[in-house]
């Protein structure tokens, strides 16, 4: 018990271990797992990142049936920041999908904006609508994928008919 008394007196005269958080800064440490950033010019629309995401935070919606171009939608409030999509992307070295070292702010009064965060989060202004609008995107994802598959099947049948006749 005497040893603990001496230890407590030493702690009384030394500096505290904690930092006063809202009044002092708390920067992110090196190697932090932060938000995912996307570059549309380098993407080849292979769908590998969508297939591996465990909570389903990346969803593509087909926008143009002729060229096969898709729109990238990302929900930073469903993401678990594991980095599996970055590992699977074949163009990750050139910078198509990158994990940055910044935090996502908590869902309070504003929704975060940025060009590299995809189409979904840049179209919403009210934080209360995030959940209901994301359900619509999930339904659109399934619907447009079925229509795209039907369209490609019709193209293949038409080509076969034109080749034989």
């Amino acid at each position, binding site marked *: *018990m005497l*040893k*603990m008394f001496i*230890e*407590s007196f030493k702690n009384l005269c030394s500096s505290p*271990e904690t930092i006063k958080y809202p009044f002092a800064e708390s920067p992110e*440490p*090196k*190697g*932090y*797992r932060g938000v995912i950033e996307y570059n549309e010019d380098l993407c080849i629309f292979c769908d590998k990142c969508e297939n*591996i995401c*465990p909570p389903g935070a990346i969803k593509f919606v087909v926008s143009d049936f002729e060229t096969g171009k898709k729109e990238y939608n990302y929900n930073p409030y469903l993401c*678990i920041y*594991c*980095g*599996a999509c970055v*590992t699977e992307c074949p163009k990750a070295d050139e910078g198509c999908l990158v994990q940055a070292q910044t935090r996502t702010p908590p869902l309070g009064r504003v929704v975060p904006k940025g060009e590299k965060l995809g189409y979904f989060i840049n179209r919403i202004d009210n934080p209360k609508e995030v959940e209901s609008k994301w359900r619509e995107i999930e339904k659109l994802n399934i619907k447009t994928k079925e229509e795209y598959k039907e369209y490609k099947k019709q193209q293949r049948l038409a080509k076969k008919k034109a080749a034989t006749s």
Partner: protein
Amino acid sequence: MGKIIVPFGSQHIALPEPVSFLFETENEIITNVEAHVGYVHRGIEKAAITKFEFNQLPYLTARVCGLCSITHAGAVVHGLEKLLNIEVNKRIDYLRMFVVELDRIHSHLLANGHVAEVVGYENLFMQTFKIREDVMDVLERITGNRVQYDYQVIGGVARDIDSEIVEFSKKKLKTLKDNVLKIMDFNDSDYTFGLKTKGVGVISKEMATKFNTAGPIARASGFATDARAEYDYLPFEEVGYKMQLRTSGDVWARNMVRFDEVLNSIEMCENILDNLPAGESKVKVKGRPEGEVVVRVEAPRGECFYYLKGSKQKVLDRVRIRVPTYANIPILKELFVGAKYSDAQAIVLSFDPCMSCTAK
């Protein structure tokens, strides 16, 4: 004399886990116990065979528990690598062992701090949590997060380490070792702490064998069982692993076994950092899992068991998890009968229960 039923309920000021015991007491001695354990059942076994594909499973099972998350992910990865016939190289084994031993250190320090808090010695609880911050700094630098690491993937590890991280870890481990020796001395030599913990909740070696206990609880009674020595999943003998045993079997002996294991783990980590072999940190993965396999790994609380069955599809057939707290609940019910009611909180917390693992 009348009987009173006292709830050591699911909401209690000394209980950090959602478990509920109903004690029937008579003059402050407990005579009968009824236990309720299913408060946080989330249906993870059903989700693993309907909704998630096999390469998303390590991310799902890591979230069964917060403190032993890397052992659950490691067991699934080891089982799937056996079913897919993949061999990993030595560098991946050593990196996985490094993070597993660091996780064991921080979990044991948290358990010992909580036993000190519940007994009434809050100063020792604060000091133990202060020295635990060194381990959390090293883990945050390597994996990016303090509690959920997502570090083990099928075919390797998520990130590699370079020489700057090795220097940083060596400095932190050296300060940690001096601090742990100081705190172990406080636990050992303090008179009032000894009155509350020595001779309380004694388990003899015959009782531990009869009820099939696992983990530091069995090792504190002299019963030599450890999954690191009974199943080969990582090369622990090459870096200096030794089994630690004590013989008294009370609350004080369980604390001391955990401190002995912490010192052994620090020595193992320093050996790993000195002898890291060269190589790649990821190996190629192909195919689909087929067959059945049995895996046993050593979590900080004891032996964790997994059974996997697949049949060449993307979704597995059966995933069965049995955690060490599940194996220790029957003996906890036997220990309470005949003890005083005011010792109940020290006995429960010295078992280090993890209820979110038990009711998955």
